[in-house]
């Protein structure tokens, strides 16, 4: 079974996680730029983070046979902090990089005017850079946030079919699907979706344009949720091809809209088997 986790924050995870993910079948991940749990106070913190997503993290992933790409953006939460908004001016130079496969995570957190500005600006940047966009839907006031998000995308230069709306659930999936967007579901231990509800949604709405992710990060989360959903699908009677469509071909198809997806992992021969994240003599 091959698995693609289209949304996972590996910066916050350990090498044990990479090892377990590989053993579970994960061969590719996309890491969206997001906030770190602790607010940043200057643009430079973002640049170091972006550079890590374009350097160190793909290197770590490659040690475990996993292809790593990223999405780059100013996240909606920190778009509200004037100390952070200068990041918007520097984003275009990151969006040309080879490993950047979308603009994201963008979207709404508290639906403020500052978030409106950042969302519109970054949708335009995605169109300019010929990238799709990963758009987070808010945790609070979710359905209203979804409608507002779709309205803003409609007014932007980016077509709806180049947008992945993420963190969907039973209350938001229909409108997102009717809008023609790609449909992302985050499966969590306690919040967001769980495996059985995910299977029920696949039964009701079909597998087309559906992506399932763990969104694992620094909080309570599980980087093996993609495998657990795949197992739940098989148990519920979906066949191997349907699992492969949802867990591999759909994320590949979405991120291939960038023209930059490269799924062969290179440079693992000397340092595979997990013994290579050495300390370099420190």
């Amino acid at each position, binding site marked *: 079974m091959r698995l693609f986790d289209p949304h996972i924050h590996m910066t916050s995870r350990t090498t044990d996680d990479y090892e377990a993910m590989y053993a579970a079948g994960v061969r590719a991940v996309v890491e969206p730029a997001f906030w770190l749990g602790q607010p940043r106070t200057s643009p430079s913190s973002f640049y170091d983070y972006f550079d890590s997503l374009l*350097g*160190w993290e793909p*290197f770590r992933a490659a040690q475990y046979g996993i292809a790593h790409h990223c999405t780059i953006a100013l996240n909606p939460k920190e778009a509200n902090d004037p100390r952070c908004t200068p990041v918007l001016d520097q984003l275009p*130079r990151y969006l*040309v990089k*080879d490993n950047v496969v979308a603009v994201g995570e963008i979207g709404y957190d508290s639906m403020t005017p500052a978030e409106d500005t950042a969302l519109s600006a970054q949708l335009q940047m995605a169109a300019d850079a010929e990238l799709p966009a990963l758009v987070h839907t808010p945790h609070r006031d979710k359905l209203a946030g979804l409608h507002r998000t779709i309205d803003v995308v409609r007014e932007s230069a980016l077509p709806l079919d180049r947008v992945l709306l993420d963190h969907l659930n039973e209350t938001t999936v229909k409108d997102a699907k009717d809008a023609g967007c790609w449909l992302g579901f985050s499966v969590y231990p306690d919040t967001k979706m769980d495996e059985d509800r995910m299977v029920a949604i696949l039964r009701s709405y079909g597998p087309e344009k559906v992506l399932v992710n763990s969104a694992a990060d620094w909080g309570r989360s599980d980087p093996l949720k993609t495998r657990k959903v795949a197992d739940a699908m098989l148990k519920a009677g979906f066949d191997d091809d349907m699992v492969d469509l949802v867990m591999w071909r759909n994320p590949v198809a979405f991120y291939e809209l960038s023209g*930059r997806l*490269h799924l062969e992992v290179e440079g693992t021969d000397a340092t595979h088997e997990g013994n290579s994240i050495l300390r*370099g003599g420190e």
Partner: protein
Amino acid sequence: MTRTPALGALRARLESALDDDARAWLAQALATAAAQPAPSEAPAPQVTASQAPAPTWELRFAQAGRRCGPEHADDARLLLLGAARADTATLTRLYEQGTAAERRAVLHALTHLVPGPEALGLTEDALRTNDTSLVAAAVGPYGAEHLDAHAWRHAVLKCLFTGVSVDAVAALADRARGDGELARMLGDYARERTAAGRPVPGDLQRVLALTEARTEARTEARTDALTESPTEQPAEDPTEQPAEAASAASPQES
């Protein structure tokens, strides 16, 4: 620019490996880079670097992986840097704003584009990382020429620690020869490994043997892309470069 013939040979080799689309893209990108005024000839920028749009050739530098394939991107980027006659300020900016792959290309370019030690900070930065591809690039010919004895010894040791083959270390035999301090460090490291019940890296014994070598003629084979195919560089004896690097080696070594 001291070794442009090597870049010429590299271009011929790369073009033969690329498909038609990538070859055409590369030709266009190199022409764009070559058409740039050299940094020393360019007018002083009227806006700060963060406001100015990146020159087109720098966009091509970023795109090389998806246009030529990741396996050819290092070579394509190296050629672009050469065609643009990138100076130390440009190389530094591209390194600082670069992905790991872009940084690697800048490190490879230093020996071709920077005659003195002024870009050594980039090599030192790479040696502080734990990305083995950056470490390997940092111990290439530019590092061999300009790293002082202490930093060079630590770079060799870091290769052993992180599993980078010492084949990546340019001018290894010449710099290691007679280096008693390196021999001591290697011996201590071997004892530490043995005390822990862990195997001693095979490369350690190899370098240790080189520290004892006394013959002038011995030259360590190098594996960097510019010399691995001597048949395509008839005018340039690939065994010459380590000696050349050694002759310019830091005075601390002699």
